[in-house]
């Protein structure tokens, strides 16, 4: 779990965009850990949300993830 969290944070920090889809985050983690399962990535992402390191960004119809403090993180 800690390895996946680290890979997620690295992906989030190095990604060109400050908000990204779950599938893209999963692909980013797979580059480092090829055998990781989607559900494990989700559990790690949820843990990072609870630690307030990641944030959800929702348009209402679809949801993205982002790194807290990077890009838009406050109300408009």
């Amino acid at each position: 779990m800690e390895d996946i969290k680290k890979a997620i944070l690295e992906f989030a920090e190095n990604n060109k965009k400050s908000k990204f889809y779950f599938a893209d985050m999963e692909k980013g983690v797979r580059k480092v850990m090829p055998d990781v399962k989607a559900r494990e990535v989700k559990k790690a992402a949820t843990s990072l949300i609870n630690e307030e390191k990641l944030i959800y960004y929702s348009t209402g119809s679809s949801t993205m993830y982002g790194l807290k403090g990077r890009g838009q993180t406050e109300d408009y």
Partner: protein
Amino acid sequence: MAFEPREEQKELKYKELRIYSDEELNNYTEEELKGFKIKHEIPVCEELEKGPWPSFVADAKREALHRRKLADDRMMIERDVVEDLLGQLEISFKEGETHWKHGGIVGVFGYGGGVIGRYSDLPDKFPSIAHFHTMRVNQPASKFYSSDYLRSICDLWEYRGSGMMNMHGSTGDIIFLGTFTEQLEPIFYELGHVLQQDLGGSGSNLRTPSCCIGRARCEWACYDTQDMCYELTHYYQDELHRPAFPYKFKFKFDGCPNCCVASIARADMSFIGTWRDKIQVDQKAVKAYTGGEIKPNAGAHAGKDWGAFDIQKEVIDLCPTRCMRMEDGRLEINDAECNRCMHCINVMPQALRPGKDTGVSILLGAKAPILEGAQMSLLTIPFMKVEPPYDNVKENVIEPVWDWWMEEGKNRERLGELIQRQGIQKLLEVLNIPPMPQMVKEPRSNPYIFWKEEDVPGGFKRSIEDYRSRHAR
């Protein structure tokens, strides 16, 4: 089967929960309403009040007047929120452009859905709707409420939100319309800890599952829609609140093919009650219908004289598969041909009933987009028995489909689009079920079932010489 809650249930007592007194809730007269003007001029909006139908503009004005007469400390957001909403709408109608920005970081802690951020792009002109976030509240199964429950959530929303709500949104949730960011957590706390009420789904989540009235009141329900909806809502909490899907995903549960929650048109996974034996026929009651003793359609069309009931014209000739006929005064049905349109059962409910060996048909891939046309779902599993805790459905249908969609689905691609892109054959492989002839829509021009390379001896690039040695050109 009696309802068995998965957690201890509190009885809500409105007297203990209420925020407003009766006087506060009825604080204006109809006379006052007639002379009431909101603070913005809204002639275009007011056009919507004309004509025979009820208008949200008229309702919003009532709410605006009600809020104007409440005391200052009785509302946690601005009192003129409704007036500003109408003011901005007027500008949008005139200019033909929206002034809403939607989306953002807003939410409640730990949840990736249930709150949809919305902001005005004219906050200086309409400061009371600078934030106007929507909250989705997971409706009770079949939308059964007590009036105490409704009063309690209305009080809460009046106090911490705009007081305006939708009963219900398209997915079925109760929609709270308009509040400020700082009110989200207190509302979530009150809903969860006091009213035992969860938020619904939004974003790339499992959306709030919804079901028809089912066995609570309907004799045609082929399975317990409320129980299945309740069980799957609880079992898939993580999917409801923590988004990891490519896009939205909807379950809907219809007890019979009348499809009262329109699962066939809207749900990515539709569960529609059906039977695999014969329609139950009471020949005496058939005679009573043809003899005029029982009104067809349970008297629903009795407001006009349509003449005597004609079973040939009104039932048999309208059967889509022509599987019915009258023979020696008896109604005969070739059940093998019945496609469950429900028309005959709807017309003669006392004579015909669904069969006794009941279960569900599972259909996949419907969606109802605004810009493109609707797509109906595909009958994938014609019949499956369903009993609590529905492990056969969870393990053999839902989870394999989700695993496939999460792996292969593109961002913002619905399940129906993935099925179209990769083909029904791939879906059948995922579910490990054989194809049915009915899945082949146009067998001579567009067969869905193709050869796969591994099924062809020697593969697609095999040498033709061996074949030609036995078969002259």
